[in-house]
């Protein structure tokens, strides 16, 4: 990542954010969203969502299908830009810096805000090349050995090193589904992002692979701010510290995960959690 850009952003990150839920005392908020709406053509998919995402913690977005949680997640690294008809309004700040402004370089933003997708999508290249791709295009490694170090340490942090270190030249697409997803996580953390967005990372995986990814998320939260979209309320309960519940494009409720699951304020949250709809 570009160091000068990072420090420039860091100096601006001074405004203390308002704490929306009185019973939670996070020290820092990484991302602040204010009145974010997303339109696909004439259809509005997200309505005036405001939320703060705490730093070095896992925030889970839950809600029934089509509730806008993935759409909202994709606002944080401006992946909605890739959809022609999508239009985003409102303010999203990362470290106090508005990311939708024209002077923000989306290439740098996406290096700082990594993403893991629903379906494992390794490049049809070798395992090594998959992880080395980010450092290469952003010019992070200054030498071949440094690149090797980045690849190995990323694979280690993604818990994949022991399984693949002898076959780095083999295609990444030849791994099992769970391994592919961990490869995608390794690929995302190879550029040392600050935020990792995960869009239903386990929905295509079996329970054992899911458990491994969840362990990994738990370890990663020491160093990264993680936002995860999930269909599974159990998963949200297991991995997240904060949970936000979406329904029909509206943010219904957000708060500490244990409070959300034991004592939700909104009836709709309770109905969803207890399985009455969704």
């Amino acid at each position: 990542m570009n160091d000068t850009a990072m420090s420039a952003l860091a100096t601006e990150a001074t405004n203390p954010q308002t704490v929306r839920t009185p019973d939670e005392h996070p020290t820092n908020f990484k991302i602040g969203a204010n009145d974010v709406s997303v339109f696909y053509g004439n259809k509005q998919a997200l309505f005036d969502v405001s939320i703060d995402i705490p730093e070095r913690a896992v925030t889970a977005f839950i809600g029934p299908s089509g509730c806008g949680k993935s759409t909202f997640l994709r606002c944080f690294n401006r992946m909605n830009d890739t959809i022609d008809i999508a239009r985003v309004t409102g303010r999203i700040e990362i470290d106090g810096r508005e990311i939708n402004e024209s002077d923000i370089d989306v290439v740098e933003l996406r290096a700082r805000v990594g993403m893991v997708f629903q379906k494992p999508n390794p490049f049809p290249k070798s395992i090594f090349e998959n992880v080395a791709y980010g450092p290469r295009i952003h010019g992070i490694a200054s030498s071949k050995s440094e690149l090797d170090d980045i690849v190995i340490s990323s694979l280690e942090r993604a818990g994949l090193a022991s399984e693949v270190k002898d076959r780095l030249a083999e295609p990444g697409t030849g791994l099992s589904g769970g391994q592919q997803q961990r490869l995608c996580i390794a690929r995302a953390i190879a550029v040392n992002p600050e935020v990792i967005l995960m869009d239903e990372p386990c929905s295509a995986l079996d329970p054992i692979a899911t458990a491994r990814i969840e362990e990994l998320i738990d370890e990663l939260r020491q160093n990264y701010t993680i936002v995860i979209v999930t269909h599974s309320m159990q998963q949200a309960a297991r991995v997240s510290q904060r949970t936000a519940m979406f329904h029909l494009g509206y943010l219904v409720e957000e708060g500490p995960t244990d409070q959300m699951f034991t004592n939700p304020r909104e009836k709709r949250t309770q109905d969803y959690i207890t399985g009455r709809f969704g």
Partner: protein
Amino acid sequence: MTDSTMTVAVDWTSEQGAARRRRRHAADRRLRAYGIGAISLAIGLLAILIITLAATGYKAFVQTMVEVDFTISADLVKADDIPAGNFRAVVANAMSKLFPEVEGRETRELKQILTNNTRFIVRDAVIADPSVIGGTMTLRVPASDPFDQLNKREISRDLPEDQRRVNDRQITWFDKLDAEGRISTPFNWGLFFNADSRFPELAGLAGAIVGSFYALLVCFLISFPVGIAAAVYLEEFAPKNRLTDLIEVNINNLAAVPSVVFGLLGLAVFLNFFGLPRSAPLVGGMVLALMTLPTIIIVTRAALKSVPPSIREAALGMGASKHQTITHHVLPLALPGILTGTIIGLAQALGETAPLLLIGMNAFITSPPGGLMEASTALPTQVFIWADSPERGFVARTSAGILVLLGFLIVMNAIAIFLRQRLERTW
């Protein structure tokens, strides 16, 4: 779901049910039979075409040759100026030596056994090896078309003399040469290494093959980069609006425009407006490129579309720029499809005749083109020229030309299949 739907009794063993299932199976079998019938029909017609071509064309792949001993006397050919030598006399002397009894007007009939250009063949052989001056040189020269046909049984000896192009005396001489073992029918390399000629026994495809190669080279160099650039822009960058839709519709329409129209366009623009040379492979290639462009754009767009969006998202999500996403990931994955489509487009261009006729690539040209700007023919136009020629020998050569053209098409399609299997990657 209501209770009433649950209570409908289904009797799977009823006669009507069994009859319905039989009808469904029969429909399956009919559909299968239609498919097999259609494929058999297509293969049958293709087989008839190839067999017909091969039956008439195979005789052009061998050529009747006559072995003659030429005495290169120093009186007729001067070592210091070989091209000015009297090779006409050399040939006449050689034939007289073989048939000393033939005299007077009949010597002309005798000389007709050999191809008209024998003296040039001898001249070129002497230039290649001047040491034969003063000695003798044995050469195998092509027999002229009537005797080639006679030897290949295309001219029947049973016809009355006034109905065939060789008279009884000539047949006697030819048979005598045959008895002496001077007649042979080796593989006709001239078909591939000679350029066009008025005389069928000398006419070959070299000029057409070189011309087609140059034209296809120009066509590829123009249409491949332009086509890919256009397709990448339309698929990856262009905003979805009326203008883009209009361009897309027009490209699809261009692919369906008859090729003769592209020939007219080439005639009007490249020849008349820009003043480029007539009959040149450069212009032929440019016209073929216009014709191939829509095909390449359409297949490239289809190939780009078939790259899964997840790969694009993965690259963009890593912070790759659009350019990096396309060149690092999308294009390499689309390449097998693009190459296959391009080669098939080029194969189509190779067989295209009409536009080349309009820009004059059907001229009679007796040497292969030395460059892109020199007048030339192409394979399909050469076939067209030969098909129009009255000499008996061109009938077989027309079929042979078509077979050679088909051979090139098969090779190109094989390359396309090979590349697709070789480069295709899974994800």
